[in-house]
Each structure stands twice: as structure tokens, then as C-alpha cells.
């Protein structure tokens, strides 16, 4: 089969999707249905966890977090309700708003859509891990300077999306920023300032479009 999908489609092209299913499922495509079911059952039988709590070790912001969690506990739930890391916010718990965005390695993910047990063994960065030794990161500083936050509840998610973008693409343009933040919602309306802040963090200055006219 000629797989013509370009690589630049990102982390979730059809090819990587197939890869992620693992060998069992790929074999399944050509095998008898009954055999597949049996094989899947066998494969999963060895790894059944729960429903009770199981030990989970997360590596968050460079520190180990050892927790006892039911396998159904999401990464977001684990951070916010089983540890004191409440920086990642719960806005929807349904992969819509992006307030819960954290980085797994260099990839921004919705922590409400990742089970905590799946996040083991990967370096997790939350908003609490961005500032180093009390100094705001470039992105945080740019958000402050540009006032790219209001109520601030969506801010941790946007910070993670922008930080991940700049790691991948240190010189983005406004469209790149909008694309990187397409999975984040802000209800106060800070979007224009977030684009400005991301560009500022990348070294591109943009001017405010506001003019004060004094009638006095």
C-alpha cells in the first residue's frame, strides 16, 4: 500500500495512529475475527489493572509523584485532586477548552484526556514547572508584559501550548501561534494579546493598536 501522507501532518497522522495500535491490531487486519478477539483478550489479560487503586508514579516538573490511583483517574484529576498541583485547570473535562493542557515530553496534551497510569515514565511539565528559580520563563514574562491574561483560568493551558510551540518552532508567525492555540479557549477575550505575547517571546515586537484620545 502506498502511504502518501506527508510527515508534517503532525503527531496524529494515520500512520502513527496505526503504529499506536501496536502489532496485535495490525495483525488483526488480516486475521480471522475470532482469532483477533482471542488474541486481544490474551494480550490485555496480562495487563489488567484495577478497578481498585494501584500505585502510580508520575514524573512532574522533574520530581517524582507517587500516588495510589484507580486506573480510571485522569492525569488532570491526579494533579488537581490527588496532589497539590492545581495549576492545570479543569474547564470542561471533555477535551474542549484546553485549560488542562500540560506537556508530555515536548508535546502539549489535554491532561483530562490522559489516564494518569498512561502518563507514567514520561516527563510531565505543568505550569508550575515553567518558572526556574523564581524567574518567569520568556513566555510567562511576555504574557505579563502584554497583559495576555485576565481572569487567568485559561492561562496555564495557553502557556503550555505556546511554550510547546516555541520549542518546536522558535520563530513562529501569528498564524503558527493561532494554530498552536486552536485547542485552547479563553472566555475573557485575551486572544489578541496571547498572539502578541507569543511573538514577543519569540523576539518579534508588535505594537498595541489602542490609541488614547484625550478630549479634556
Amino acid at each position: 500500500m502506498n502511504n502518501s501522507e506527508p510527515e508534517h501532518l503532525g503527531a496524529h497522522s494515520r500512520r502513527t495512529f496505526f503504529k499506536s495500535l501496536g502489532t496485535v491490531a495490525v495483525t488483526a487486519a488480516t486475521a480471522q475475527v475470532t482469532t483477533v478477539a482471542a488474541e486481544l483478550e490474551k494480550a490485555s489479560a496480562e495487563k489488567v489493572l484495577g478497578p481498585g487503586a494501584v500505585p502510580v508514579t508520575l514524573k512532574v516538573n522533574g520530581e517524582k509523584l507517587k500516588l495510589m490511583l484507580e486506573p480510571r483517574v485522569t492525569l488532570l484529576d491526579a494533579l488537581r485532586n490527588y496532589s497539590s498541583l492545581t495549576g492545570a485547570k479543569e474547564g470542561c473535562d471533555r477535551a474542549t477548552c484546553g485549560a488542562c493542557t500540560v506537556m508530555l515530553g515536548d508535546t502539549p496534551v489535554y491532561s483530562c484526556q490522559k489516564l494518569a497510569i498512561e502518563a507514567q515514565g514520561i516527563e510531565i511539565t505543568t505550569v508550575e514547572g515553567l518558572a526556574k528559580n523564581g524567574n518567569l520563563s520568556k513566555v510567562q514574562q511576555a504574557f505579563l508584559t502584554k497583559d495576555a491574561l485576565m481572569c487567568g483560568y485559561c492561562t496555564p493551558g495557553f502557556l503550555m501550548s505556546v511554550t510547546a510551540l516555541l520549542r518546536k518552532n522558535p520563530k513562529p508567525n501569528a498564524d503558527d501561534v493561532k494554530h498552536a492555540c486552536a485547542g485552547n479557549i479563553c472566555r475573557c477575550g485575551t486572544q489578541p494579546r496571547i498572539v502578541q505575547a507569543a511573538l514577543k517571546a519569540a523576539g518579534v515586537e508588535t505594537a498595541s493598536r489602542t490609541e488614547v484620545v484625550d478630549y479634556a
Partner: protein
Amino acid sequence: MPEWPKDTKYISHSTARVDAPAKLTGSARYSSDIQEKGWLYGMILRSKWPAAKVTSVNLDKARAVPGIKAAVVAREGAFTIRYYGEEIAAVAGTSKQACLDALLAIEVQADVRHGFVVNENEGRKENSPQVWDGVANASAPHVRQNGDVDAAFPGCAAVIEGFYSTPVQVHNPMETHGNTVSWTDEGLTAWASTQGITSVRDGFSGALQLDNSKVRVITEYMGGGFGAKFGPGVEGVLAAKLSKEAGAPVRLMLTRFDQALAVGNRPSSFQKIKIGASADGMLQAFEAENYGTAGIGAGGDSGGGGGGADIPMPYIYRVPNIRVKQSAVTLNTGSARAFRAPGHPPASYGMESAMDDLAAKLGMDPLELRLKNDSNPIRQREYKLGAEKFGWKEKYKAPGSSSGVVKTGIGCAGGAWGGSSGDRRTQGDAQINPDGSIELRLGVQDIGTGTRTVIAVVAAEMLGLKPEQITVRVGDTNFPYGPGSGGSTTCPSVSPTVHNICTKALEQLQTQTGVADARGKNWFAACKKLGVSPLMVHGQWQQGLSTDHACGVQFAEVEVDTETGLVTVKKILGVHDCGLIINQVTLESQINGGIIMGMGYALYEERVMDDLSGVVLNPNF
């Protein structure tokens, strides 16, 4: 009469939001982040029926779920459910997972009513199923008239008739409604996600029969409200009851789904407008019939006012002959609450659309039509300034005159807000320490508008200090009274108050230390002379430093694909008279936010009900 300083260093300049570092590092503790010692997770069971009579709620099996520490019913005895999502019971347990299991274990007996109505056009029919027994769903029309409309229309050179409608819009703040509540014999403490700590305190006091002095409400950080977060809510009262039963603090934040069903929305509007003008464009007659729904009722426990389905018609225009009939349609849907300038956005949309249609009929530039008919002198100047910046003359084309499938159009519209020059009951304290540090305490809350920063800016200006030298504490009912944050009144409430506190502080410093002018470079020397005890200063709001009746105009350029209907916004220009600007950068964000939410309302947002099942089909962002 007090006056603002003339040559300012901070007022009307830009100071970075003082709480930005806390919000940017995740150290800001929002109401939903509170983890009191021994806290429990709380959740609510909601009705899956739009109409039913609940005859019994059995919590025994829910209480038996491992980890569950408390379970309460929303109402004692049999009760009527009037909308999908109405509260039935609540549970608290050691984890969200325990609560999810417990909600499934609650046994509800109910007689489901198949007669219900969730559609405005169905609801206003005479034979529609009554939401409240014995009461017609459509209210008798509220009629307002002036002059003689019937006599005026025949004399008009141009008359247009149009039908303009706006959908129900849900607030959807990023942080849902909710509280962490600790209720012990000593009293009740609530960490509330609210726009009004005082109104939440009063709400808890009233609902639970507790003295004001036994209720403390804390809101250090909250994630947006937009008018829907003024009371403790049913969810707050349930959290309190759960806390008492469990003997532990309970954090009960709504889910995003809950938020879309039960804690407020902006009413819909269906506006039939007829408008007539003389040949020179002067409005002569206006006739309108409007109906909309505020759900099962209006306002609920919003405490922020508004919530009704009526809108101001004909909005900002004065027409000699008018007749306006409005009616609210009660439906089996969640109740409306105040929502960012209640009534204004739908009223502006209807009237300004009719103005554009009238301009087309008259063959007149729609900006000209507005300049002729808008009597407000500030908007007159704003329109002229805006038209110049926007390039109105160069861009304007008569409707329908451009060729091609994708057409570009421009428009303009005016707005007004009465607001107030501040809550005159606002008070505040300052503690000035001998080391020169100063803390201001005001019982207001910062809902994202930058209230902390406004307080720091005013104090820094008055005392000759830097904003970062001012510690600002808000969001606690133990502090002196402050108003709820609604109707754009917080800034004009706190700024004169801080002015007063600082003026008094300087006077008292002079009396106590002999330093004639303790501002700026003299500040630390003067404070040192206080000796060991800090100087405590109490101040209050004062007249003459703030104004009301802000108004503005906006211009928009949009591209419309006339085959697909896709609308692309190319440019928006807002011209707003804001009175005295305390902090420019946060003000700009505030205006951006208003424009962006308005665009969302115009282009994307609508609560969709399913007529057959009575459920909300899009209970998410």
C-alpha cells in the same frame, strides 16, 4: 471636592497586572483549587427529565458507596422538576470517582411529565403545556407607547419591517460555578467562585438561617462570571449541607455540563420591528413586538439584577412615536441571569439592524442616518472619529452593489451603559507599617478585570510610591464592605475609596509624625517615626471622582461567502469613552474582551434545545 492628581505617573498609564505572576506560575489559588484539610469532593445529581414530579429520592445505596461521607436531597419531600438539569440530590466523598459511583446509586422515583415545552414559538401558543400550573407561559404584553404610531407611519417617506432574533447564550466562564464550603458549629466559610462575596455571604445567611457574622466568604481568585455568579447558588447551599453532614470541608464545583443547564443564560429575543422615517432620514415612528425566554423564571438567585426577557427598545434612539410590546415566554429550561449588559446586546442588534435596513430603503449612508438620529453628543464625536480611523467613506458601498460570491461589507453601531459612578457604601482599610510597607484591604473581588491593579495604581499615585510597593488584599468578607462586580461599577467604586484612604493616611501621618508631606521620598522616614505600632486608616467612597453613562460606537468590516454563509471578520474598531482611565493596559484588555465575546455571540454561540426530549444538545463550550 476631592480631585485627582494632575500630572500622573501611574494613573492613565499602564501598569502590569499585579497578580499576573501568581496567575502565570499556577500559584494563584482559585476557588476550585482550594484543598482544605480533609476536604471532600462533591457532585450533584440532576434531572434527566425536563418535567417530572419526583416522589422519592433514596440515598441509602449512595451512602454505602466506599468513600462517600455525605448525601443530601435538593428538596425535602415530593417536588416538581421544571427543567432538564434541575438539582435532585448531592453527594460528597473522598474522590471524584466515589462521587461518580454514588450518583449512579441514587434511586429516584418520579412521575415523568410528557407535557413540556422548550421552544419559544411553541411556548407562546395558548395550548402549550404549562410550565407553572395555572399560569400561561406567555406573559401579558408589557406595553410602552408615546405619541401616535398609527398616525405617524402613513406620513413617513420610508418604512421598513424586519424580524430580528437572537438565541439564548450561556455565560460559560472558564471556571465553572461552585464553592468549597466548611460549615462547623463555629460558622461557615465558603471559598466561592463569585463576582460578589457580600451577596454570596448574604445568600448563605438567608438560606441557612445564619447570622452574617457567622458566614465568611473568600474569593482570592476566580475564573470569570460575566453576570452569572452573584449568589451561593443551589450548589453552594448543597455543599454547605454536605459539609455539615460529613463534618469536613466540601469542594463542589459544577461540571461544564451542569454549568450549561442550570446557572444562568442570556434570554433569547424575537424582535418584529417596524420603523419609519421622513425623507431627510429623521426617525418618525417605531413599532416593535418582542418575545424571548428567560427559562422557568427570570433572575433566579442571580442577585445581579437583569435576567428578564425584556430589552430596551428602540435602544439608544429617541423616536417621537413609539409602541413597544414585549412578552416573556416561560419554558422548561434553566433560568436566565444577568449577562454582560443585560438586554443591551440583543436590543442593539435588533435596532441597529433595522437602522441599516432603513438606510438602504432611504438610499442613505447608514452612518449618516445614525448621526442624524443619535442625540448623544459623545457618540456623535465617537462616530466621526471612528469613521475617520476606520476609513468609512472609502470603504462604504451600497448594499448589494459589489459583484462576486464573497462580498465585503461594513457596518457601525452605538451602545450605551448607564452603570453608576460607584457604590457609595464602598469602604476600605489601610495598614501602614513602621517599615513603610502598606496593605490595603477592600471587600471587593477581582474577577479578571484588574481590580487589584487599579487599587495598587491609585494608591501608588496618591502616596508617591510604586504599585509593586502596595500590597492589595481583596476577596474576603472580613474586609470592609465592597460591592459586587457587575455593571462596570467596581473601578468607580474602589478608585475614589482608595483616594480617600490615601488622603487620610497622609493627613494622619502628618499629625502623628510631623512630616508635612509623607509622599514619595519622605515615605519611609515618616513611617519610621510611627514607632512600633502601625497606622490604621479607614476610608470610604466619595463623590466627584468618578462618572457614569459610558458610551461607545463600533465599526466592523466582514466578508460573507454568500453561497456558504461563512462570515470572516476582517476588522473591528471600537471607540469608547471610558471616563478617567485608571490603568490603560487592563482597560484595553477589557475592551478586547467585550468585542470578542460580542463576536462569539453574533457568530457562534447558541444554546440548542431538543424540542422532543427537552434536553440541552450542546452543554459545552
